[in-house]
């Protein structure tokens, strides 16, 4: 079974990543200041490998991060969703927005939809978000999603030298809050 889900929120479309996303994805990963908390700048040849591995996670496991598109413009504005590389410290729901897409609530809007999908389709009972302790913008997104600080975690290579704090919540907490 190959899943190619498309999710829709008020302002955004979420779909599995594809080759058309490369230019925008590489532009984001090439902006050193913008990606300093998520592993640092990647030249196009490394961004190509990152995008390919995201697409490959979809191909092999049936999930990965979604590409996030702005409905109004069709523009690629980032990625979010389930992501669990080998030896990862938990079931990650991650997010990264393109420069220029920040400050609009897109990360919370998109990550919420991705989290609903992950809890409904992957059998996950808990999610985490690994966040650099200095990344205040992402910490705010985690808090708005209702996640709480769980503690320091060790991520595997290539993030083994990066400081990461896990934030997260259980499925029961997420679905209870949505129901209320």
């Amino acid at each position: 079974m190959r899943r190619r889900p498309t999710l829709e929120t008020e302002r955004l479309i979420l779909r599995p990543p594809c080759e058309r996303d490369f230019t925008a994805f590489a532009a984001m990963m090439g902006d050193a200041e913008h990606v300093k908390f998520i592993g640092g700048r990647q030249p196009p040849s490394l961004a190509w490998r990152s995008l390919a591995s995201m697409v490959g996670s979809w191909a092999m496991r049936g999930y990965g991060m979604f590409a996030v598109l702005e409905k109004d413009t069709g523009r690629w504005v980032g990625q979010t969703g389930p992501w669990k590389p080998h030896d990862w410290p938990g079931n990650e729901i991650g997010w990264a927005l393109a420069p220029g897409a920040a400050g609009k609530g897109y990360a919370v809007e998109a990550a919420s939809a991705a989290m609903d999908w992950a809890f409904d389709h992957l059998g996950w009972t808990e999610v985490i978000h690994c966040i650099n302790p200095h990344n205040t913008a992402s910490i705010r997104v985690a808090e708005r999603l209702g996640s709480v600080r769980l503690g320091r975690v060790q991520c595997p290579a290539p993030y083994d030298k990066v400081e990461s704090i896990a934030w997260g919540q259980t499925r029961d907490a997420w679905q209870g809050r949505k129901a209320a």
Partner: protein
Amino acid sequence: MQAPGPTLETDRLILRPPAPEDFEPWCEMMADEETARFIGGVASPSMVWRQLCSMAGAWTMFGYAMFSVVEKSSGRWLGRLGPWTPADWPGTEVGWSLSRAAWGKGYATEGAAAAIDWAFDNLGWTEVIHCIDPENLPSAAVARRLGSAYLRPGKLPPPYETAQVQIWGQRREQWKGRRAVA
């Protein structure tokens, strides 16, 4: 789930797109210093997972990438080989790496020949190259057996920017001409 793509068969080998079950033998290959030496060095399982995923993702995005090589007689995963053109790559590569247990049997030449046939027939390529470390004599011997010649010195993009490579290769007409005679 296996990545989408064709399956090829040679006398002794099956070539198919990568699949999750390739992860463990791929980790073993990338943990072996001598095998990994010319393909970026020893890699941890978490890095191998990303390599495997990017190979599977390239199949999904572009309709080609390296095949996983499986020995027909044993069902064992032996390595990966085939077309591979990451961003900023110096040409249309057909590359190969086999785990140590598969060396010395002519498997690389047998598999790469099938992959080159497939690439020329399906990808519209007019040339195939192989990026080979000058100290990697076994791979240079495979290139020679495939009929490729040393073309020029080359540079690879990150993460291989410090690697020293020689570019071997041949034109489509050379390959087709030789296959027609054979």
